[in-house]
């Protein structure tokens, strides 16, 4: 049974700052790469198998680390940095990590959070999610499920707002991804006990470029989301 912490962290109403991030979706919309529910599904599928798998793997590993005597937070943080070549994506991940940390300190106070923050003052978002799930007694599966779901639910919500898509159709598109979510979660959990350097590292060059382009366009024109 999932812990309450996992449900809270995956709720769009969780006040961790997630609602201002689109995961590259806004830039994809601006370039007419995503125009409707059909190509949104394709975008989300690609994101889940790449950025989603990396994030889910680190969340699962963080849930393991939260229960370990000597958690390797600095190594996990550095390895996630290394798997995130886009500076804009690193900023987006750390911004959501900072926001989640603020809420976590009030809801799940723990020395585990202090140790995580000692490694970096603005930890990556998947590490925070994994740490909180671990603190609350949840297992790596929950942490991976939560982060894999967030990897698609955030951009999907952005698509509803930016394109005026039917939210019922978009919700159905997310639910239809269940087999892929399960696959990604299984891969992430299978790797959770490995050394940080050996965690999965699939790349998504298009998402990296969209993230960088998003930031550049925001300086020149307007972008409504932070990423």
């Amino acid at each position: 049974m999932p812990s309450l912490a996992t449900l809270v962290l995956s709720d769009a109403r969780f006040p961790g700052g997630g609602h201002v991030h689109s995961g590259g979706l806004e830039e994809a919309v601006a370039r007419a790469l995503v125009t409707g529910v059909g190509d949104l599904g394709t975008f989300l599928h690609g994101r889940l198998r790449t950025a989603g798998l990396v994030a889910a793997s680190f969340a699962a590993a963080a849930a393991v680390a939260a229960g370990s005597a000597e958690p390797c937070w600095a190594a996990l943080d550095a390895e996630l940095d290394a798997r995130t070549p886009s500076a804009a994506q690193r900023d987006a991940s750390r911004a959501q990590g900072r926001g989640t940390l603020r809420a976590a300190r009030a809801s799940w106070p723990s020395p585990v959070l202090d140790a995580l923050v000692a490694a970096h003052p603005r930890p990556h978002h998947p590490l925070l999610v994994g740490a909180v799930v671990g603190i609350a007694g949840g297992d790596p599966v929950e942490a991976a499920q939560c982060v894999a779901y967030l990897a698609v639910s955030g951009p999907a919500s952005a698509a509803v707002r930016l394109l005026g898509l039917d939210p019922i159709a978009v919700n159905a598109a997310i639910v239809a991804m269940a087999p892929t979510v399960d696959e990604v979660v299984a891969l992430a959990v299978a790797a959770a006990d490995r050394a940080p350097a050996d965690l999965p590292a699939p790349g998504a060059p298009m998402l990296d470029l969209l993230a960088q382009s998003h930031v550049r366009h925001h300086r020149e024109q307007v972008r409504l989301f932070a990423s």
Partner: protein
Amino acid sequence: MRPEDHVGHGHGHLVTFDPTETEPDHHDTPPTHGRAVRIGIGGPVGSGKTALVAALARSLADRVRLAVVTNDIYTTEDADFLRRNAVLPPDRVEAVQTGCCPHTAIRDDITANLDAVETLEERFGDLDLVLVESGGDNLTAVFSRGLVDRQIFVVDVAGGDKVPRKGGPGVTTADLLVINKIDLAALVGADLGVMTSDAHRMRGELPVIAQSLVHDPGATDVGEWVLAQVGAVRAAA
């Protein structure tokens, strides 16, 4: 990224190959006294929030150490206005992107705004006041008490003299209601007497200020109210 941030990680972070790499802020002055007093300024689109912020920035600049966070839907629009008009030095204005949901960013999930306020506090260390201007929104939008200490709701006569009567949490609960652009009342057929009496009826004891920035570019009455709140919040802290 500043190399010293990563000394001790032992993970090769001293070298960066990324010319675009950014850290959120290069100022790291710790706050020297308690946090700045935070006052939210909300209200419908076009009611004059940014003009009020600009007027306050001008008239209060010599009296309090001030910074501004803007949440305009087009984010940089208001920030650029404030910077272009030399109201505030550019680094005293932070712009927040709200993901198409200006009310969410000031009420349900205040993370982005808290980050912006804290960034300004860390940058300057000795701020007295941070004004948080919301993006234009509807009559139900109010600031979270987790984000601001006091809030001002701005409506204007050109939006129609029925607005105060319509109520909503902005009109009924804001710490100050400003009825703006009263110089236009006659031109748009708005009955200012109806607006102010409706406003007082909806708000009970809470204050209402009717003003025109054409007649009073310094927003004197609102400025005095703001200074009084800064003192009151500080005294209660």
